[in-house]
């Protein structure tokens, strides 16, 4: 960037407040079809997001957001003129930008990972091929790996500034099994430190699923208990995250009230949910000292003992609600329960289901309703017998299901989720044979 953007924004007449972010990303990518290389890619991107604010006559605040890429730097004057025109039309309820503060230091950059990314990519290929070869009756269908280094620099007109340099590995693989390779299992994950890249462990786990996937049957149409794995669980919490947000509360959409239970039903029959956001976890996927508006981040309890403890909010909605800003969502921590996984997986009177993977779990944020196909799991009988299942669907409402939920004692870390390895929900509707 050749222009002094800070000076430019501060000296442009008509701009009341401003903030900008410069984001640089260097990425190395490997794509495998079976064991063969399909693509090797190197990507370098830079993007500047600029937000300007203008005071309007009626006391409202005008806002415009625009972007600059390196080839557009010479257009800055033209873009600013257009942004001021837009801000004159985009009238919003006023709020203040984040104020200057010393941010916490969190380790986010794995130097070893980004020192020689080409070598890391090559090692990845060798490790994944070796790990698959170790497994019986399984082949690699495809795999992708991206190693990236992201730098984000933030500054605003209230003297707030900070920089985040973060390393990231995003990877996936698909495994095949069966005489005619008729069954598959797949995994995708991201992490920030090479020590978190558990290729061998994940291949072993998903090879097991791929083999079991050869001999699946449909689940039974029933109303019974389901146990959902950590990897699959996170989307189910999205309605809770939405309803505890300043935006949903200000917009009058939230059904949550501070200090009141978050489940729907006459009484709690299972364990209480405890949920927090923790942006301070070293090398956490969503760890960050500040959010995209420059608000300093810290650990915050959102749901405590099954009740809404704190509203999380961006700076805008915090000002609207006159509450302290917490900043945007980060890593999600869910407290463990009292029973271990084996206890949760015990069927008593009738078969229960252990869900390893849904096709796509996409609950409605407002209602908490969801309906999703079972991609793979197990039917567990009172005798302890486990039968692999696939197909059919599960229908439910997360607010109702939380009235009768049990959290495993074992804790797992998967992406930005840190919590029980599994959660059991009693009395869920299953459509199958």
């Amino acid at each position: 960037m050749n222009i002094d953007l800070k000076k430019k924004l501060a000296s442009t007449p008509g701009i009341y407040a401003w903030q900008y972010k410069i984001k640089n990303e260097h990425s190395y990518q490997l794509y495998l079809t079976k064991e063969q290389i399909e693509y090797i890619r190197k990507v370098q991107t830079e993007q500047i997001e600029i937000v300007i604010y203008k005071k309007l006559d009626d006391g409202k605040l005008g806002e415009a957001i625009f972007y600059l890429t390196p080839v557009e730097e010479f257009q800055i004057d033209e873009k600013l003129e257009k942004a001021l025109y837009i801000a004159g039309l985009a009238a919003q309820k006023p709020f203040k930008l984040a104020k200057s503060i010393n941010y916490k230091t969190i380790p986010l950059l794995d130097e070893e990972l980004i020192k020689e990314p080409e070598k890391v990519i090559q090692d990845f290929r060798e490790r994944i091929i070796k790990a698959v070869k170790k497994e019986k009756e399984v082949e690699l269908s495809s795999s992708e790996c991206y190693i990236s280094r992201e730098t984000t620099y933030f500054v605003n007109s209230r003297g707030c500034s900070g920089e985040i340099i973060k390393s990231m590995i995003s990877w996936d693989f698909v495994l095949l099994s069966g005489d005619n390779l008729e069954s598959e299992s797949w995994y995708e994950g991201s992490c920030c430190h090479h020590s978190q890249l558990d290729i061998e462990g994940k291949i072993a786990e998903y090879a097991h699923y791929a083999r079991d996937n050869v001999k699946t049957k449909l689940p039974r149409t029933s109303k019974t208990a389901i146990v959902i794995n950590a990897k699959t669980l996170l989307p189910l919490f999205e309605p809770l995250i939405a309803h505890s947000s300043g935006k949903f509360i200000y917009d009058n959409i939230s059904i949550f009230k501070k200090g009141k239970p978050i489940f729907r039903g006459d009484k709690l029959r299972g364990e209480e949910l405890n949920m927090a956001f923790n942006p301070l976890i070293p090398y956490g996927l969503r760890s960050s000292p500040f959010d995209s508006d420059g608000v300093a981040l810290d650990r915050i309890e959102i749901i405590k003992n099954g009740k809404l403890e704190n509203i999380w909010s961006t700076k805008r909605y915090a000002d609207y609600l006159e509450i302290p800003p917490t900043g945007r969502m980060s890593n999600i921590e869910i407290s463990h329960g009292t029973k271990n996984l084996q206890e949760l997986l015990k069927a008593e009177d009738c078969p229960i289901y252990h869900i390893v993977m849904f096709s796509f779990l996409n609950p409605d944020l407002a209602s908490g309703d969801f309906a999703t196909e079972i991609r793979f799991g197990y039917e567990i009988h009172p005798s302890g017998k486990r039968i692999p299942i696939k197909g059919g669907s599960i229908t439910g409402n997360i607010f109702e299901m939380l009235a009768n939920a049990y959290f495993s004692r074992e804790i797992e870390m998967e992406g930005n989720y840190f919590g029980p390895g599994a959660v059991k929900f009693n009395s869920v509707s299953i459509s199958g044979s």
Partner: protein
Amino acid sequence: MRKLLPELVEIMEKKVPYASALADYYRGLTIKKDKQGVYVNEIPSITGVVLGAFNGEFFHETATTHCTPHNLRQNVAELLDTITVKDTNISIDPGEGGYKEFYTKTLQSPMQVELSEKIEILKEIENKLIKLDSRVINAWVAYKEQIKDQIFVNRNKNFTQTIIRVNVILSLFMSDGNKVVNNMEILGKTKGVEILKEIDENLLEKIKKETIEMLKAEKIKPGFYNVITCPDVTGIIAHETFGHGVEMDLYLKDGALAKDYIGSKLAPEYVNIVDDPTLEGEYGCYFFDDEGELAKPTYIIENGIFKRGISDLYSSIYLSHLPRSANGRRESIARKPYARMSNTFFVPGKHTVEEIIESTDYGIYMDNGYFGMEDPKGWGMQINSRIGREIKGGKFTGKVFSPITMTGFVPDILKEISHVGNIFLTIPGTCAKRYKEDVLVAIGGAHLKTKARLG
């Protein structure tokens, strides 16, 4: 850029058997009106150049947003340094060439309509949404205009295209004091601002009626039903089953069951499914794909027989016995191209929707489809709709279920299709490949009657 890119391709082809370059310039605006006010944002996009070189076995690419001639020449030099050319017999046909330019036809280009005029229209729509019913607790409306300029160059081709897409989302929240529901209506086309005129009183009334129905809806009893799908649900079926299911990059990975069914009769003869990027005005339109292949329709199912899939360049190289289609698409220059859909739909048949409903003793009419998920390997599917209307004795009973999920084995559901409707409608969508790689598409078709598992 149209002069520089051929020079870079020529330099690369001094070392490698095939090279190409793609320049992407993506711009546009989103305008949203909600309770707090008006938001106008430029679209964040990655604008830059991707340079690709085939080494005889696989592709090397370098992509950058730093597009000065000096930097691009340097990137080419660095790229070539990393490449070892493989001695194979594989060659890539650069295709019929020329210097071609393509533009989306619009009645009202987004550039010709004042921002203030667009904002006023959105304010009026949001105001009407809020006043639709006393149970409305919130509403917003968002408009998006996207203009994509691309240049594709290989040793024969020097193509440019400008694609203009506009979409509008209307979102309505209602509450009965206990439950909150959210309904959405999405319009989108490869055309201009004229799309805003499609938002009329009928559409607002439809959103209101459906949202009230969602508030009162019950959960469906899981089981097998006669199912009638409205055109957008039909479109999701086409997309998830004979879109994702026939992406030929998956054939190379043994990742799609469809590969074993080429040439098989999978549905009655009145069932036809097409992927067509040339379908003028539809959201997934383009003139050439991201690998320079000129757009053309792919007849995936013809008269019930599964004929062919859709391909990207890499899969067409290694499956040279199968025809190449124009479906090599990438999310942005930051990602590689994959075999992806454009506008995918069931071709209309002969039945009126009234005939289809009257023919149903007991069944569910799936309405307001909003989501689907593919399973190319198992050839299963998950299709979600917000509304399921009960039909008894050939008539709607007024009872509504929400949400509804259709699941099942694709050949089973196709084989059971007894009616194909005569109305053709499409909706815009964003399509992901498994969990990432978003591209813009349209889906659609006609009413279908089949049998499927609902939950």
